[in-house]
């Protein structure tokens, strides 16, 4: 990531979340799952750690957009879960800017956690596995293809 481009910390106005709650959640769930499966296809995620995610239910909540995505990993693929029947094994909650800073490797997850900008609840060990798995991925070429990182 080029140091000349930084994602500032921001919070979208409350009406965005109010509106977001009323919108269908499937488009961003599908986008997220497609992104994860693309990473799988590119063999960016280590198999030994992936096995530990089998049948676990994950939830990613974007607080200031009101968006929420639940998904699971089963039989070698990430799959969307549109109507979760139980509490997730692992849940993340943060504002959009924190997720963008994490994805672009501009901020460290522990830093965001210490500063209370990232909330992690559920199975802490599973959270650590996911965090360390993403940290170990060599993203540069991959992220350069995403529009948000082009500059």
């Amino acid at each position, binding site marked *: 990531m080029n140091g000349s481009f930084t994602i500032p910390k921001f919070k979208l106005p409350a009406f965005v979340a109010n509106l977001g709650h009323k919108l269908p959640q499937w488009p961003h769930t599908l986008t997220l799952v497609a992104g994860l499966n693309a990473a799988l296809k590119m063999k960016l995620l280590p198999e030994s750690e992936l096995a530990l995610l089998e049948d676990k239910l994950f939830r990613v909540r974007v607080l200031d957009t009101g968006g929420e995505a639940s998904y699971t990993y089963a039989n070698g693929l990430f799959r969307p879960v549109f109507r979760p029947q139980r509490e997730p094994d692992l849940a993340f909650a943060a504002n959009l800017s924190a997720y963008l800073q994490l994805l672009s490797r501009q901020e460290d997850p522990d830093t965001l956690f*210490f500063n209370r900008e990232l909330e992690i609840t559920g199975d802490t060990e599973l959270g650590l596995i996911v965090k360390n798995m993403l940290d170990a991925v060599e993203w540069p070429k991959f992220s350069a293809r995403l529009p948000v990182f082009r500059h």
Partner: protein
Amino acid sequence: MTSLPDLVCPAGSLPALKAAVDNGADAVYLGFKNDTNARNFAGLNFDQKTMADGIRYAHAKGREVLLAINTFPQAGRVADWQKAVDAAVDQGVDAIILADIGLLDYARNRHLQQRLHLSVQGSATSYEAINFCQREFGIRRAVLPRVLTLAQVENVIKNTSVEIEVFGFGSLCVMNEGRCWLSSYACGESPNTVGACSPAKYVKWDKKPGAMETRLNGVLIDRFGDDEPAGYPTLCKGRFEVQGETYYALEEPTSLNVLEILPDIIKIGVRAIKVEGRQRSPTYVAQVTRTLRAALNSLHDGSERFHVKPAWQAELSKVSEGSQATLGAYNRPWR
């Protein structure tokens, strides 16, 4: 002008190793994916292939790779730690960082040419202890526990020919290094036994209205208000009720930051400055390495006076545990 100390940075993954090298670390330290190192967390550390890739990357840029085998061999499993030493030698690391005396003896006898460092977990705070390890095991460097004042560090350096490495930045614990069993008190496991303090499987973050509770194996460690900075879920950083008052009875979540006294550290002859944080992401490694490199290089410019740039402090404060930093024992008035 005294030469600059080596900047020794942490790597829990290959991208973190590359971040350290690319941002100016002179050496990177890492561990195997098992309990022979004190950051034995799920998904962290190096297997044979990633370690070989990492060593190749660092060596191509003229940097060193140090391998930490800094836990203590457990009863009936001594061979696992000895195999780790053999594997480290096979991988071609520049030095092995060891804490256990039996293992130092094994490494010295089995691999005479291998450079050995005494880990901070070895808990050697006196030059007598360090010189003993030099005489018996040929250690070339010792990492000092974070309990000494700057004057005490200077006294150690004056009385040994072993290189001295000190911590320059990173999360602080109770610093009873190599002897701490607090984590075991709550969950039966600690760095010395399983290679992890407060293993994640025992940690629970519970979101309650207006607060977040941290529990370790069911024991309530802390309760953070929505606007309060958080820390790692360790007993030493918990808030406890003592005689009717609830407060940080052992210590607050905080990070060590030596920027302010960097010229003094160099003046007394410290050979290497270590950054804590193999459990942190490549982003943290890049941020801290870049900042300390800039600070060290500014001293090498020959400029008469050293100024801590506000941008350096801001960068380091941001990534600090509890969002606050301290000079720790270095400037303590008492001994």
